[in-house]
């Protein structure tokens, strides 16, 4: 028996460690700058690429090697990963002057710097093309920040104003329709005037916005003329606009320290930037934010509810068939598949409550098929998750109250305490570690759930965070991004599976880290409480 139990434990440990190990090893390596090789084939052709892995074709016995070759837009099939037969490769060199460019589009570029063409950037003369390139890049970015970014900001605020004017138009039209239905003619005069006023506003804003767009496009075109000329491994020359370049480095020339710096700079980008290129590049900040906020809202909604219900069941409810049935029901609630909760959340929160809110407060938008709360959003998703996790909190609260020795209650009652005073001053503090346990379980489960979110408001790419600087600052109706969904999306819905693989590992690792750190925080809090409320004597 001791062998069977030990072996079972060992098996569980093994699988856990393998799972974590695969994620950690793969995710940790993603940002390390790999050397870029210049591959020369037997037929004399050349290509630049990072050697990844190799495999033997079981039918032909030929060994092939996979390279990440980048330069997607130049490839006839638009692929950036290629398999080459190993015996076709004559040699692989690692020249120091290979550049890796991370770009806004089309993934990485590998090539040698030839020249910088910056017709409208004011650049000092320099003999070194590498230095010239850095100068030009810095100048281009400065110009972009000075000329284009303010235009973008203006456009975005114009578009917000346009949006609110359009909502006002909808409302006025809606009111006009209602008035027309039952009132004498002439009552609509005020509304007509308002509509005309709004139309004028809309027209003006539109004109302003159009002008800005033209100006922005002009600026972008002008800035886009500034480019760097690169030569690919096969010898073709490519002109790459400077503003397209997000990051550049020369991995073959980097020392260990530089590589470490690069690594952490990439980690920083991951944690703070928005995603690029269908989420396969760039950062994960919106998804991290969405995940943490979702769990936070979930906790705020489910914890009080669960604790109160648990207190009622444990302290006030009179034991009987009804209470026993309720208890069994609560326990079973915890076992319902999460997708069922998702569907319930969609029907009850989104269409039910959200639909009602829309009907009461935004009838004009609903009439035009523009739901505000009647569509998925972070509030509904977190309430759905709250519903999913509340049974765990109820059960653990009740358990925690039940395990408190009766002597403590009697000791409190004997001093003239009321039931409520006993509950608040003695029982709840003592039960808090147990309640924390339930909370930890609930949180860990909520942070990892994806299925119910997919139908209650998670999206692949959310243009705005649920919290921002626009009034009223917190937008519970907004859709959001989530790390768990991100894994599913980029891992299984992406057209370019190879390119998104590193990001899948990184996202998985990040989700694990977030869940573990939230749980560790809660566990630490619990152990502090335990030390305070329990000792050998109780």
């Amino acid at each position, binding site marked *: 028996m001791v062998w069977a139990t030990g072996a079972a434990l060992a098996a569980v440990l093994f699988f856990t460690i393998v799972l974590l190990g695969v994620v950690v090893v793969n995710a940790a390596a993603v940002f390390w700058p790999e050397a870029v090789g210049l591959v020369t084939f037997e037929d004399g052709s050349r290509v630049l690429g990072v050697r990844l892995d190799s495999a033997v074709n079981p039918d032909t016995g030929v060994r092939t090697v996979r390279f990440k070759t980048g330069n997607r837009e130049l490839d006839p099939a638009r692929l950036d990963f290629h398999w080459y037969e190993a015996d076709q490769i004559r040699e692989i060199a690692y020249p120091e002057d290979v550049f890796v460019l991370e770009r806004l589009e089309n993934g990485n570029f590998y090539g040698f710097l030839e020249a910088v063409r910056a017709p409208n950037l004011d650049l000092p003369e320099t003999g070194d093309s590498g230095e010239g390139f850095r100068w030009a890049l810095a100048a281009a970015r400065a110009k972009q920040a000075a000329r284009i970014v303010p235009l973008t900001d203006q456009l975005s605020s114009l578009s917000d104003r346009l949006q609110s004017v359009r909502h006002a138009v909808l409302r006025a039209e809606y009111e006009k329709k209602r008035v027309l239905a039952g009132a004498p003619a002439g009552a609509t005069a005020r509304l007509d005037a308002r509509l005309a006023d709004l139309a004028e506003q809309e027209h003006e804003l539109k004109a302003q916005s159009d002008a800005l767009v033209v100006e922005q496009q002009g600026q972008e075109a002008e800035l886009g003329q500034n480019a760097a000329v690169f030569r690919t491994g096969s010898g073709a020359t490519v002109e790459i606009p400077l503003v397209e370049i997000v990051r550049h480095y020369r991995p073959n020339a980097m020392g260990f320290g530089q590589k470490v710096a690069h690594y952490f700079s990439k980690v920083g980008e991951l944690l703070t930037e928005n995603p690029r290129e269908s989420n396969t590049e760039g950062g994960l900040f919106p998804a991290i934010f969405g995940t943490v906020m979702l769990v936070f809202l979930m906790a705020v909604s489910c914890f009080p509810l669960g604790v109160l219900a648990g207190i009622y069941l444990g302290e006030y409810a009179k034991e009987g068939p009804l209470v026993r049935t309720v208890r069994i029901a609560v326990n079973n609630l915890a076992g319902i598949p999460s997708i069922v909760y998702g569907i319930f959340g969609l029907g009850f929160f989104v269409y039910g409550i959200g639909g009602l809110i829309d009907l009461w407060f935004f009838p004009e938008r609903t009439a035009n098929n523009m739901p505000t709360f009647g569509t998925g959003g972070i509030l509904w998703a977190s309430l759905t998750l709250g519903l999913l996790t509340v049974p765990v909190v109820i059960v653990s609260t009740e358990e925690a109250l039940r395990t408190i020795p009766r002597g403590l209650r009697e*000791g409190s009652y*004997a001093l*003239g305490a009321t039931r409520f005073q006993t509950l608040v001053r003695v029982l709840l503090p003592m039960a808090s570690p147990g309640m924390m346990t339930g909370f930890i379980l609930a949180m860990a489960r909520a942070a990892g759930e994806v299925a119910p979110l997919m139908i209650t408001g998670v999206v692949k790419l959310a243009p705005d965070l649920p919290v921002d600087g626009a009034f009223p600052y917190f937008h519970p109706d907004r859709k959001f991004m989530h790390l768990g969904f991100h894994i599913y999306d980029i891992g299984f819905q992406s057209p370019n599976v190879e390119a998104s693989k590193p990001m899948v590992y990184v996202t998985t690792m990040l989700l694990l880290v977030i869940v573990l750190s939230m749980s560790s925080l809660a566990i630490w809090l619990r152990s502090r409480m335990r030390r305070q409320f*329990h000792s050998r004597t109780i």
Partner: protein
Amino acid sequence: MQSIPQPAIRKPFMDEPNASPAPNAARPVLTKAARSADQGPCTVADPIVRAEHLYLYYGESEALTDITMDFPRNQVTALIGPSGCGKSTYLRCLNRMNDLIDAVRTAGSIRVDGQDVLDPSIDVIELRRRVGMVFQKATPFPKSIYENVAYGLRIAGISSRNTLDETVERSLKRAALWDEVKDRLQESALGLSGGQHQRLCIARAIAVNPEIILMDEPCSALDPRSTTRIEDLIAELRGEYTIIIVTHNMQQAARVSDHTAFLYEGVLVEFGPTKQVFTNPVKKETEDYITGRFG
């Protein structure tokens, strides 16, 4: 005779095997009616508590039968009797702790200074402030020593720092615990020893200034040295508080109490001055029990 450790949560009417029955003890076989009819006068001159024709039912079974007795003011009264005889239940009637058990019903009356405490309409909170209680198993709250003693005051709505400080100090001194804990009042009460826990619970009870302190086998979980300290404490508190103590320990009853009541199977068999009950009991059952022939 020895004290018998028992679980803190007693279901007093379950049949338990008697702790150490003498092998050849002739068990007195008396009908309940016969015994209660046999009862002598159980009244004193200046009672603080007077129970009259008290019956208590636990579900269907009768746990206390027609108990009529007085507890003298500012004296120590001991309740003795074998396990399951109903003495703890009786004690818990005096501050309505039995309310916490659903199946308990009572009949008759218990008057504390003339007020019937079994009346459902009385303020139980007020009653429990007047009638404090110390349990067999010390139950310090998971709070600091200071907050444990101040608990009763705080829940009564007293928050003046001075009052609390004074009361905590006075109560701890009264419970002979002050010198041991005065330097660590803010430390957790759970760090104290078993004997200190029980004295802390006594201090906690004293802090709300009750008239009566009920003690339900307060020493049964303690070592002899701690027991002595608690007994000394009872002797000191005597005269200021009315103390009613349930004990399994005959010597303890004889040492600390002024009056002793002997209960057997829910019936008050004998009540009188301790000296008389122990040296010259009226009833044969009392004598048998005290001399260890049964129970």
